[in-house]
């Protein structure tokens, strides 16, 4: 068992090493590369396992040009054959098991093959054709046949500006101004803002409304003792249970819907109609993420549409505005307004619900805009990120 595991581990490591070598352009075998020259096929001496630098030759795999049973000829440094073979530095020749026969093959290369296999004959013909082609060609072309255009030495450029379509940028050290570093937040996408001028107009209007109406109202509301304000907040939050529960069901989050139902029961009974948030003391019910209709629409695949700044309500999107309508429809507080109840009673019921959130919303608005370079953009970005997180929860 252990032996099998060890073998498997070694096998995986070998595969990884081969893949890494292939990716880096290094031949794992080292000596299987040949080059076709005027003189014939020569094996290539690999420098540290890599192809020679700045080479303009075309390289072939030895197996692609090798004649079956006859290893390739040893490379000869000059076209004229010398009586005594020169020492060969090629790793291919050094590792060849039959050096004498290889030399013989080199001297007999012009003679027709006596017993070639059909495929071997074809390969031989290709090699000969390639050799002839190179002999016929001019030295400049022969030396650089398949080199990309950009690598051939062209006319001298006097400045970088003379090179069109090439952008030369100052290379920065990694960790300083590297692309990864600077593009860290490029993936954060804000909601498209197709009606920005109109939105900016409403943003300005809301800012005035918040400053001259909401803030004074919020200050007056702040006169009420903290505990009383907390109780008002809790009661309305508890009453709005259907919004969360129905949307959990619509998102097929049944476990969360169950938790919401338990939370409602606990707060309604033990918390005396929701005045106290007893659920906060129960770890399982303390942090149930609230669901809303806009989240449901997002889960169903609806995109944001464009960014909209609603008068009074503030930042939103097309999807979130539709969601807001859904939330109002599911809220029992809204039902009071449409249930034939006198308007004074309806106002008395809905009024505190509007004010209870005001302080928190104004704080969030201040946090986004106070030290912003462009308050409109800051609110838009903050809203986009906040809603993205709410949907992802």
């Amino acid at each position, binding site marked *: 068992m252990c032996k099998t595991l060890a073998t498997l*581990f070694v096998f995986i490591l070998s595969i990884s090493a081969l893949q890494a070598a292939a990716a880096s352009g290094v031949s794992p075998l080292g000596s299987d590369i040949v080059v076709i020259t005027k003189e014939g096929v020569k094996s290539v001496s690999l420098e540290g396992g890599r192809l020679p630098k700045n080479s303009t030759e075309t390289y072939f795999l030895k197996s692609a040009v090798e004649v079956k049973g006859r290893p390739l000829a040893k490379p000869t440094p000059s076209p004229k054959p010398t009586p005594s073979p020169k020492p060969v530095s090629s790793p291919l020749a050094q590792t060849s098991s039959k050096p004498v026969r290889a030399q013989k093959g080199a001297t007999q290369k012009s003679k027709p093959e006596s017993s070639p296999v059909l495929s071997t004959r074809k390969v031989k013909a290709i090699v000969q054709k390639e050799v002839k082609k190179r002999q016929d060609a001019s030295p400049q072309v022969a030396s650089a046949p398949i080199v990309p255009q950009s690598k051939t030495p062209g006319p001298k450029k006097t400045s970088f500006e003379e090179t069109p379509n090439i952008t030369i940028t100052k290379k920065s050290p990694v960790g300083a101004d590297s692309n990864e570093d600077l593009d860290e937040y490029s993936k954060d996408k804000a909601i498209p803002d197709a009606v920005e001028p109109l939105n900016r107009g409403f943003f300005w209007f809301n800012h005035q409304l918040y400053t001259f109406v909401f803030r004074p109202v919020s200050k007056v509301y702040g006169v009420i003792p903290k505990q009383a304000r907390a109780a008002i907040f809790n009661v309305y939050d508890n009453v709005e249970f259907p919004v969360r529960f129905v949307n959990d069901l619509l998102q097929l989050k049944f476990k969360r819907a169950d938790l919401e139902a338990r939370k409602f029961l606990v707060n309604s009974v033990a918390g005396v109609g929701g005045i106290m948030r007893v659920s906060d003391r129960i770890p399982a019910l303390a942090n149930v993420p609230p669901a809303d209709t806009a989240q449901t629409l997002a889960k169903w695949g609806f995109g944001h549409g464009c960014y909209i700044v609603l008068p009074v309500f503030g930042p939103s999107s097309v999807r979130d505005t539709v969601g807001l309508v859904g939330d109002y429809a599911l809220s029992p507080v809204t039902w009071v307004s449409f249930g034939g109840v006198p308007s004074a009673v309806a106002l008395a019921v809905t009024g505190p619900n509007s004010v209870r959130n005001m302080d928190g919303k104004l704080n969030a608005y201040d946090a986004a805009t106070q030290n912003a370079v462009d308050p409109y953009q800051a609110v838009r970005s903050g809203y986009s990120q906040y809603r993205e997180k709410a949907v992802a929860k």
Partner: protein
Amino acid sequence: MRSLFLLLTSLVLIHGRVSASTIEAEKHLKKAVSEVAQIADRSANSSALAVSVRPVLVNIISFDLMTRRAVGPGWREFTDAQQKEATDLFTTLIIRNYSSKFSPGEFPEITYKTPMCPVPGRVEIPTSILYKGSHYEVIYRQEESVAWRITDVVIEGVSMIATYRTQFDAQFKQGGAVAVISSLKKSVASSQ
């Protein structure tokens, strides 16, 4: 058997390294928060806090990295002098932004959750903050360079740097580095 042992040992070592870095980062954050809490306790208002907390924040927040990331690829077009000016202005803005979150005498109750290590050298520490009766989820992003440094603060899913990035992008498109610096100057002056 030996290979299996080596494999297991290397896995344990890698895990140990990650755990060590998260522990170190969390320790660094806790120390920083406690230092800021002590200063906030002594400060009369948020403006005074901004001044007194600066030397501490400079040692725990990587303002340099924050500024680069907030500006984005346009940063390369800034001259050295512009980069320095933008970093100084942005540092002032961030410290003021941070200080404005605190009211004297009221310091948040922070619960540290399990740190995450998305990539080696980076740690995200999620916290739950109870402040003025409201709960907030805040993630402190830290990176290890010379020491652990905070590189971003994400409050309720809203990244401080991503928010500034949106604003700087618009400024940079309008008028390059000059526009970014000018808007920073304006913002620093207006919020004083």
